[in-house]
């Protein structure tokens, strides 16, 4: 049996989420086989010249979200993002974010699928300039 990768629909435009706010979206799986369980977590990791490292797994709340076109199995997710780090595409240091979806089917070991998204600066709420 071939297990197709889930289709990811990030709630934000182009998968860009402000830091400090929740990242939301929908995971869509084929109608067959039926999913036993689905979970997800968000995580930052680094690329570039330095030794690669990754942040803690931030668990996402995953809930069934009905059926999609053709009977697709849909799950909504929401994960709270911390204020830092932002996604960063530097010259020797790059910081990336990914959402790792873990799907379990009856009789199979869980399979994981990473999806990349971008964490940007939070909306400007009026930084206070210094006045001497």
């Amino acid at each position, binding site marked *: 049996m071939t297990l197709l990768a889930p289709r990811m629909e990030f709630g934000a435009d182009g998968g860009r989420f402000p830091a400090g706010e929740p990242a939301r979206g929908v995971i869509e799986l084929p109608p067959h086989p039926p999913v036993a369980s689905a979970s997800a977590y968000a995580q930052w990791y680094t690329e570039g010249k330095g*030794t690669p490292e990754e942040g803690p797994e931030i668990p996402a709340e995953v809930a069934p979200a009905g059926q999609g076109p053709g009977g697709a199995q849909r799950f909504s997710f929401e994960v709270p993002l911390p204020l830092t780090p932002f996604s960063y595409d530097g010259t020797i*240091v790059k910081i990336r974010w990914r959402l790792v979806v873990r799907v379990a089917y009856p009789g199979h070991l869980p399979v994981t699928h990473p999806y990349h998204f971008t964490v940007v*600066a939070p909306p400007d709420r009026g930084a206070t300039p210094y006045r001497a």
Partner: protein
Amino acid sequence: MVTHTSFIPRYAVILLFGVVGLGLLAPVARREARKASVWQETTCVIEDVTVSTWKDSDGDTRHKTTVTFSYLQDGARRTASEENPSAAGSHTEAAQKLPKGTTAPCAYDPDEPGEATIDPGKVPWGLFLSCLIPLAWLVFGLMGMMAFRSRPGFDADALPVELPRRLDPATALAMPMGLTGFGLLFGAAWNGSMAWMLHGAPAALPCMALHLGAGGYLLWEQARPMLQRRKLGDTVVECSAQALSLGETITVKVVQLGRGDIEELSAEIVCEEIARYREGTTDRTERHTALALPLGSLLHERVTPEAPLVLRGSARIPRDAVPTFRGAHNEIAWSVRVKVNVASAPDRLDTYPLSVQARRAS
């Protein structure tokens, strides 16, 4: 109120160690030196040699040789005794080396009747060398105190925070190098004096020269950056806040103290990418300046202790910049970078770390 970062307590402790060490060693060294120079040499008669034996708390057998001798001072015969004199050798050979009733060279203190030694005329080089260690502590303590002494009055328009300077690798190495230097000087004092006593000067001098040379070199290497910095004076960086948020404007004041002709004093806010990795068995660090925001510069200025050079500047951290990030091997580091070019001394490039946050803490 400016929060000054002060190193004075650390140097005060080093100074205190130096004073206490010299206070303990110097009188002993002086007394031993007097023995060699002022005490009168004469011939004494060995009256008695006793060897006492006992076991210490560890069960080891210990011996003590006590030599009692008499000598003539101002026409009067006086008696003195000395424990474990080197003239007596080991406890097994003391009776043969100094048989009772024989004569031996000795010396007495003309100012202190009854003070005499059967080991006359030996200059206590080991003790003198031991004094070098607390003396070095004293000098470094004083130098440190002077380098970070109270600053002249430039605080009239002070900004709230004085930023600490990030230690550059050379400065970070100075302390272990200095400690190794102290260790080598101690080795010179200890091993040299032992070798001198047991085998004489020809055997001791090469060992002492080696230790003194290496120890002196390492101590000089520690002192040199401090002296270079001292030549011009310290650079103080104050700013409106050490922790900033994106979009915020930072005001920085750079004060150059000391005396000298400055070709250029410039400051900028920099955002650096720092990547650490291991190549073979070597840990490497690479840096890349991702963003530099100039704060201003001053050209061809003279600085005096009475009139420190002051550079003020402001910059706005861009809204779309990346905040400070500190991973184990990857880092985004913000700092104030100050460059001082002086005609008569090596250029200085100092870094004063800042923290840039995504959002101002409410």
